[in-house]
Each structure stands twice: as C-alpha cells, then as structure tokens.
C-alpha cells in the first residue's frame, strides 16, 4: 500500500492575514479618499459645471428640488416665497451668505425666482453648487 504524505493543516490565522491586509488597505483608502457630508433630507442631482469659485463654509443652504420646490432646513416652500423665509432665517444667523443646491432638472425660472427673492432679502451673492463635469 502506498502512503501519501499528508499536508500538515495550516493554522487559521495564517490564512487570515492577507484578508486583514486588504481590509486594512480598503479602510485606509476610504478614510483618506472620501469626505464625510452631513445627510440631506432631499436628494438632488447637481448640475454639471466647469468653473469652481472654491467658496466654502456656507452657513445656509437652500435646496431646489426637481419639481421647483425649495427646502430651507426642514421647511418646504414655493420659490416665490423663499426670500421672506430666508430673511427670517438669516436674521437669526446674522450672515449674508447663501448656497443654492439646485437639481439639474429643476425649472430654471424657479432658480431665478429664488435668486430674485434673495436679492430682495438682502443677499447680494449666492453660490450655486455644481458637480465637476461637462
């Protein structure tokens, strides 16, 4: 009878070490490459743009949904009335900087209407958020 050499059973941790290496690498990748963002209650797909003015730390963000409604925090309003609410909101915060996050399919007149309302509320400049691309 022929006898074969039996392979000695490998220890468990030896086989796990490559896995742990890869998982650690992935972990470090996500830590370094990603940026954390606070979750918004409305999902918008930003319009694509080419220019970047690199404005940061904008205190208040208005979100324009694809159907033209405007969100300020938890409140939903019509684009026509947004200026008034923004005025109240800015009065509390004491800041004149506003970011507008508009969906790429939102009606352009809603965004323009919103910006006109902001002008009346005393906001001279708004920052439109876009996504890199063309």
């Amino acid at each position: 009878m022929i006898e074969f050499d039996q392979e000695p059973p490998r220890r468990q941790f030896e086989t796990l070490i490559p896995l742990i290496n890869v998982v650690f690498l992935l972990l470090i990748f996500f830590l370094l490459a990603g940026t954390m963002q606070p979750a918004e209650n409305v999902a918008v797909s930003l319009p694509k743009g080419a220019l970047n003015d690199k404005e940061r730390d904008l205190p208040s963000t208005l979100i324009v949904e694809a159907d033209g409604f405007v969100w300020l925090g938890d409140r939903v309003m019509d684009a026509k009335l947004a200026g008034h609410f923004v005025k109240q909101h800015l009065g509390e915060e004491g800041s004149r900087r506003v970011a507008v996050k508009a969906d790429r399919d939102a009606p352009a007149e809603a965004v323009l209407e919103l910006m006109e309302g902001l002008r009346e509320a005393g906001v001279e400049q708004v920052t439109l958020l876009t996504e890199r691309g063309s």
Partner: protein
Amino acid sequence: MFEEPVRRRGMASLTPLIDVVFLLLIFFMLTTSFLQTQSLAVVTPAPSVDELPTDARVIEIWLLGNDTIAIDGTPVERAALAESLKQAIGERTDLTVTILAEKGSKTQALIAAIEAARQSGAKSVGTARVERIAP
C-alpha cells in the same frame, strides 16, 4: 509555594479584530461620498425685467423650453456654448450678456449659460425669466 502564572502561548485570536475592522470599513464605505462639488458665485438678479438693457449692445442667450439653447436666435449645442458666445462677442467686450429663461428650461442649461457668460469676458451679465421667447 505559589504556582507560576501560565503564560499564554501563540497569537491571541484575530477574529474580534477582524470584526471591528470590517465594521469600520462598512461604516466608512457608507458614509463617504466621492462627489466633487464645485461652487459658482452668482450676483443675484434684479427682480424686474425692465432694468435689463435692450439696445443693440446686448447678446441674448435663450434657454428654450424644449431644453435647447440659442444665442440671439441661432441654436447652439450646450458643449459649444462658451465658444460660440466668445465668437459672437469678439472684440466688443463692453457688451452685456442677457440670459433669458423660458418656461420649461432646466437648471442645467442655466448653469451652462452662466458659466459661458462668465468665461466670455462680457462686461455684465443679466438674467430674466419669461413665459415665452418671441423670436
């Protein structure tokens, strides 16, 4: 007298470590976003259309309701908008660019028009919304 404490030999179990690392990995995978946002600073427009100049030194970008763009009536591809606007302006950089948004036009077109107007070197840019652009 006292017994020597027994030394543990070998490696401690790796399983809890792997559990924690996996949890962290999943956490970071779900919370990170790789979306690169840019910002475009825009001066808010005046509420009245009447304040816009209407003389010959104005170039109008029309954002039409069927999601097309035209410069002074000539249809233009969105990708070629900045280039066409530059050509239309030429040397006359004292021109005013007016962006007219018809009902039904989308924000993507508005952003493209604002960026093109910014890149064209025009002196000033105005925006207005209209029900319907009369050709």
